């Protein structure tokens, strides 16, 4: 594969271009760490993009962040929510990935769109061949500082990785950290970044406290599965899989721990996106939608959201009853065994004991089926409900991008008017200043327009990819589910066929 050869140059040249060009934003944010006061939903995603102009979107930060639940280190001092903590660690890896030039500080947003276009064009034939497994959950530490470490194994023939197969140990906050970095880099330019799995204080507390019971085992398994799906979705994305943070996450044996571990959960992100959406609505951005495609798609995703939630509720009900059936079957099996033991008639007694055994086996089948119901359908639907949130977020960003562009335009207009007035006064200094400002603003307006067009273009591509993936995903899961159904029935047949002669032999 010639990935390696082609990977670095686009980014390198882009950086060189941008550093020289005039269309650098005047304030490349040196600090990635933004205090809560200025962090709004908008800012979080445009960390280093012209900051303060978005203060109109300011919300009460406590409001926003109060809902971000914490998983680990309840004693951690920082209450801030951060999306990108410090410089991208890709800069200081122990074994630097050879194939990627790490971006400079504060230029996270400088992955320009054209470089992505090139990456995506490489992907034309969709040579996706990567498999990630999350396994071997292992409790590390004791008490409330304990955490679960998961083994992340990547198998890939892609040459951008050093080896074809490699494993690392990661904890949940690492996954959240990865997601927050990706979200800060890509969401605001229109890429649908898969949301990270949900946090759960209750679930994790049980695990920490050392309760080795079925519900905490189920919780760990549920989480493990969710983490695996999350990573697979992330690397399926042609652009994301080449991101240095992703690659470092998968490969590096020493991953700097996310400094502020109260990373946003996807639920927290959802709440924030909703709040931002509300804020947007309150501001009544009457976007002159020139493109019916976007209107239609937004409506489509609204509908899809509602439908998927309904489906999810149906499946949850099914899973619940299936588990109930398993419990009841087990109890019936016990009662049948007791009946068999008490029975005087020898052959009938034996048959009843066999009946008890059959019912126990059927109970196991019910449990397996309940797991299939859950891990296949319920989690799939849950994943997509969360994914659609990310999709909606991306549409919102487009609107904000449009708004920014419009604001710049209006400001430029004002400045021009002011300059026109200054022409008649004898203030050459002020006039010059005005002209300079106009020049800057003009560039900004043009950039704003380009940004808007680019995000629109990206979203179109992303939505198309997303929709195709959705169909594929559902089909794959349904096939797995049907396979489980067939298998269950075939097992049942075996059990009944074994029991029949026993029943016949009673007398």
């Amino acid at each position, binding site marked *: 594969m010639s990935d390696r050869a082609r990977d670095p140059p686009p980014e390198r040249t882009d950086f060189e271009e941008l550093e020289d060009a005039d269309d650098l934003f005047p304030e490349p944010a040196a600090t990635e760490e933004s205090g809560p006061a200025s962090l709004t939903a908008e800012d979080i995603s445009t960390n280093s993009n012209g900051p303060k102009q978005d203060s109109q979107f300011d919300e009460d930060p406590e409001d926003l962040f109060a809902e971000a639940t914490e998983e680990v280190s309840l004693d951690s001092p920082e209450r801030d929510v951060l999306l990108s903590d410090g410089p991208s660690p890709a800069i200081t890896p122990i074994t630097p990935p050879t194939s990627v030039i790490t971006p400079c500080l504060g230029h996270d947003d400088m992955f320009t769109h054209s470089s992505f276009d090139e990456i995506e064009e490489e992907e034309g034939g969709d040579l996706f061949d990567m498999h990630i497994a999350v396994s071997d959950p292992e409790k590390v530490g004791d008490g409330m500082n304990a955490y679960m470490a998961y083994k992340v194994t990547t198998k890939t023939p892609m040459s951008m990785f050093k080896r074809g197969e490699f494993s690392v140990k990661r904890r949940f906050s690492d996954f959240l950290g990865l997601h927050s970095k990706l979200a800060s880099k890509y969401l605001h330019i229109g890429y649908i970044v898969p949301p990270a799995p949900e946090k759960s204080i209750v679930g994790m507390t049980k695990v920490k406290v050392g309760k080795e019971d079925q519900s905490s085992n189920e919780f760990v398994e549920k989480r493990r599965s969710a983490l695996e799906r999350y990573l697979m979705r992330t690397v399926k994305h042609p652009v994301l899989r080449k991101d240095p943070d992703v690659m470092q996450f998968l490969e590096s044996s020493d991953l700097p721990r996310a400094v502020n571990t109260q990373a946003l959960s996807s639920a927290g992100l959802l709440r924030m996106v909703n709040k931002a959406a509300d804020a947007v609505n309150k501001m009544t951005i009457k976007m002159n939608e020139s493109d019916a495609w976007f209107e239609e798609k937004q409506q489509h995703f609204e509908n899809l959201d509602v439908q998927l939630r309904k489906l999810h509720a149906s499946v949850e009900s*099914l899973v619940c*009853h299936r588990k109930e*059936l398993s419990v009841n079957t087990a109890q019936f099996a016990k*009662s049948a065994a007791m009946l068999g033991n008490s029975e005087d008639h020898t052959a009938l007694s034996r048959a009843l004991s066999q009946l008890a055994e059959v019912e126990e086996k059927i109970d196991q089948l019910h449990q397996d089926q309940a797991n299939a119901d859950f891990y296949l359908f319920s989690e799939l639907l849950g994943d997509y409900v969360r994914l659609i949130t990310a999709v909606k977020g991306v549409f919102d960003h487009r609107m904000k991008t449009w708004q920014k562009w419009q604001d710049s335009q209006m400001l430029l207009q004002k400045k021009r008017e002011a300059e026109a007035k200054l022409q008649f006064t004898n203030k050459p200094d002020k006039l010059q200043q005005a002209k300079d400002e106009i020049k800057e603003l003009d560039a900004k307006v043009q950039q704003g327009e380009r940004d808007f067009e680019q995000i629109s273009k990206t979203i179109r591509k992303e939505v198309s990819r997303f929709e195709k993936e*959705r169909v594929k995903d559902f089909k794959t899961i349904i096939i797995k589910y049907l396979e489980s*159904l067939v298998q269950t029935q075939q097992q049942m047949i075996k059990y009944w066929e074994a029991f*029949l002669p026993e029943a016949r032999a009673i*007398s």
Partner: protein
Amino acid sequence: MMEEVQDVTSALSVHGHNIKVTDVLKDGDTLTFVIVSQKVSGTGEYHVDRTYDDVEWLQQHLFSQEDVPGLHGVIFPPVPAKPQVNVTAKGMKQLGFLGLGEWQPYCKALETFLRQVASHDLLKKNKAVEIFLTSSDPPGRQRVKKNIFNWLSQAMDEMRKEGHKDVDEFFQAQRDQNLVMTGCTKNATERFLEVVLTEQKIAVACGHFSAALHLCVEAGEDPVKQAFSRICVKLSEVLESMKKNMMSVAENNVNTLGLGLDLESRYQEAEKEMLFRRTCKLVELETARRSAEKAKPVKKAAMEEVKKAAESEFDHISRVAKQEIAQFESERVQMLQQALVGWCEQQLLTAKESADQFDRYLQAFRGMA
């Protein structure tokens, strides 16, 4: 089965083994059952309408039959509980399996009861049976004085007699075994009912899921939308299929093992009642003996008479009881075997059908572009 024609007037004019409850009609709060029986001589059938009141009438007459010594030793075929059209929670619990499935299982249970009564050597000669099965007028619509009913409920007050030690090893063993069996069988029946009720809930949940999938179908020419819609429609069919499978499984459970366990449970209770009646008679006998011993010469002859009567009754009861128990044991094993075999066969069939059905859907999905 050959009827012994002892007294022409008391022989049953219909066959006992093929009585059918062919239909059940709901009229407001009342259920009316249509009962069909085949004439012994010649061809021809009797069709009669009966309600539960009529069944109770029949039962009372069976209990109060006079010319049968040792009648109390009979294990009376257990009658199903009273069916309520608007069933309460307590009623549901009482009826158990018989309250399910639009009264079809109930009809089966009633049918079994009538067949057992009409085939029982001691009971079938009761004229009430003939009237019940053949008379065009429903016999039981007026309330009749209670006979053994009262006796039985009185006996409930004397539960302490239940533990009274027996004089006969066989009967003591029988009583001990019966105590264990009634408990186990009742427990198993209730647990199995829970299983069936949950299966029904799953069927309903599958139905909801299936309906929700239909809502996801979108019109439009967009090929992706069409593909997703196709998937939803197909999956909806799969869910319908799952629903039908679950319903079949539940039905099979009810119609075979459910009914079997229900009958076994009620029969064990009937045996328990018989054994209790005998025990009460034993207590009565022992009391009579003591009275006769202690009696002053004036009363002695009378007391001896009482004692002899009690002895005679007790002997009759014990004799009949022994026969009944032997009959009961063989019948119940046969009945349970039938239930278990039928259950297994039906579930096997359903599983095969479902496996085929699901496999076809699997292939269809695999082949979907």
